[in-house]
């Protein structure tokens, strides 16, 4: 089978770009293309910022300084990275199965809502000790996110309804749902936010230990990052080392092969969507319990969509997700003060684009070859 062919068909340049399929991909290449595409993306971003009348160098300098400059801002970066790790893992899990869960944003909101309901409904009285309150909030957050994943997952598995559209539509439904509760039921004095949670519903933060360790004062990093790190190991273990993960990867690589091997595709689809949604829901819980301490309309800095990009840039590797999430946490953290304000989102888009464009290098070797006459 001929593995080479010219891309520039029809044109007659003296040279042509040839793509030759790789039989194996060197282990260092994915990391190299990821870093390379980041660099290219930032260069493209610079051009756009200049075109829009901004100063790209100053913007980037500001991003680095405001994201990683000192312990204080790095703390903020890690706080922003916390939900991103969990959502990046949620997307990684689903994408491994080629299940396009792009509803993490909605699942995040539902998780936040579920955890809030425990405090605000109230399902548990405010005097409940944290040791009981927090795990139940986590459970509720995970469950509500999982429910939001279950619906599209079930429709996909049972009726072959396109999960890309359904998960996305569920996002809009979730935000309206949360707004209804924030404005209508739990509104504090008519404002667009619920009352502040009692302390027992707050995740412990570093600054809470400032009495014993004064140097921790002011650091708002909360226990949610531990959820993220533990989830990373767990997701890695399940994907790479368990039978279930093997089934997921098999379905992702070839649905047909998985079917003939007797893998239960329906059950796995529903299950993966639920766990994926649950992880995103847990991120929502961590965000309101660890950072916001109340339910309000705008709790997500587009975390749900950023998670998609993170998963892809990390090449669906759970450990790489953590690194990339910290990088993007920095981008979001620093981006709050950058003008024009859309720059971080635009950069995210350009990064994703460069990553997928560079994927071709993993699968094909690019050769510049002298055109022969009648090469077709």
């Amino acid at each position, binding site marked *: *089978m001929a*593995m080479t062919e010219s891309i520039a068909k*029809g044109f007659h340049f003296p040279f042509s770009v040839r793509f030759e399929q790789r039989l194996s991909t060197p282990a260092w290449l994915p990391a190299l293309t990821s870093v390379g595409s980041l660099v290219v993306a930032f260069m493209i971003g610079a051009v756009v910022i200049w075109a829009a009348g901004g100063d790209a160098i100053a913007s980037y300098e500001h991003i680095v300084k405001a994201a990683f400059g000192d312990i204080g801002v790095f703390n903020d970066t890690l706080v922003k990275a916390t939900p991103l790790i969990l959502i990046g893992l949620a997307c990684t899990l689903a994408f491994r199965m080629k299940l396009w869960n792009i509803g993490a944003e909605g699942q995040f909101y539902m998780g936040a809502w579920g955890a809030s309901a425990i405090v605000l409904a109230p399902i548990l009285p405010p005097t409940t000790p944290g040791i009981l309150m927090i795990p139940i909030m986590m459970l509720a957050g995970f469950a509500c996110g999982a429910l939001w994943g279950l619906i599209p997952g079930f429709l996909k598995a049972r009726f072959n309804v396109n999960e890309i559209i359904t998960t996305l539509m569920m996002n809009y439904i979730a935000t309206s749902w949360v707004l209804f509760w924030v404005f*209508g039921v739990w509104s504090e004095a008519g404002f667009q936010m619920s009352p502040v949670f009692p302390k027992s519903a707050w995740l412990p933060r570093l600054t809470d230990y400032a009495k014993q360790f004064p140097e921790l004062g002011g650091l708002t990093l909360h226990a949610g990052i531990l959820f993220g790190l533990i989830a990373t190991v767990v997701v890695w273990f399940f994907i790479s080392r368990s039978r279930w993960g093997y089934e997921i990867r098999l379905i992702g690589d070839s649905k047909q092969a998985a079917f003939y091997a007797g893998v239960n595709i329906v059950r796995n689809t529903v299950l993966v969507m639920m766990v994926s949604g649950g992880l995103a829901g847990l991120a929502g819980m961590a965000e309101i319990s660890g950072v916001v301490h109340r339910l309000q309309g705008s709790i997500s800095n587009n975390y749900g969509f950023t998670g998609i990009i993170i998963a892809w840039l990390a090449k669906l590797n759970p450990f790489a997700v953590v690194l990339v999430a910290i990088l993007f946490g920095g981008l979001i953290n620093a981006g709050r003060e950058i003008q024009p304000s*859309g720059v971080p*989102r635009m*950069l995210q888009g*350009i990064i994703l*684009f460069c990553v997928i464009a560079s994927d071709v290098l993993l699968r094909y070797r690019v050769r510049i070859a002298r055109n022969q006459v009648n090469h077709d």
Partner: protein
Amino acid sequence: MIDWIVILQAGVASGTVLLFASLGEILAERSGVMNLGIEGMMLIGAMTAYKIAVVTGNVWLGMVLAMVAAGVLSLLHALVTINFRADQVVSGLAINFVGIGLSTVLGEGLSKSGAVNLLPTFSLPLLSQIPVLGPILFTNHNPMTYLGYLLTPAAWFYINRTRPGLHLRAVGEHPAAADALGINVYGLRYRYVFIGGLMAGLAGATISLAVSPGWFSDLTTSGQGWIAVGLVIFAQWNPWRAAAGSYMFGALRRLILDLQGPQTLLFFANPFYYMPKLGFFLQMLPYALVILILFIGSREAMKKRLGTPAALGVPYVRGERGL
């Protein structure tokens, strides 16, 4: 009281946005390339059209440049998916993010610009005199709405009754066979992805210069690009069904607004008037309805065993075993 004529009239106008976007996507998907970046391309179109209208005062130039801008974005998608054989879903998502981000950056401060020329509205003589249909379809619409009436049958005729349309379907159903017959598979896919981009740009421009004038960042489209992608699946890649769905969703958008006005609804006290917070549930309706129609559509497709162009989402590589 709820005035159905007004709702349907407004529905036809705002449904035109979905119609353009979904017709473009139908052409692209019929050629085998799924472009999930409609929302992003619509935003680029909406922003460009509005910006040009603000700067030059010329709405027509705005419309044209909006189409070009969205078209350029779609060419990126074509390059990455057709040449680089990247996954169409992920590339579409990337197009989306780029579109959203780029339009927010370039549209910075645009929402504060004052009065802007908009597309003119006019009634068609004679046709507007037809009872019921006249006021709904032919009265006080902008030219894009009338263009929509022409494009639907044109797209159907083109796809199903012309030779280029046959080539289009061949490329989407069996690219290897089409290639063997001398049809330029890559070229045609590029062409239809580009047309899809132009149409998405037109849809975006129709929003910002006619249907709901202005630039409100990503709220300008508020998910309509995604609804269009859903409609294409529901429409089973048939322009007529896409038109029916588009106008229905257009009317629904207006109905949701109007439902919250009157004090009584069908002789009962209107809950949406007395408890405005219930309006959040009304806002969910279009999105929930998309899920419902996808569900219905996929059941229908299972029964009739029809639908998806066979090569949709599959990159074509000459000499490699495809389908």
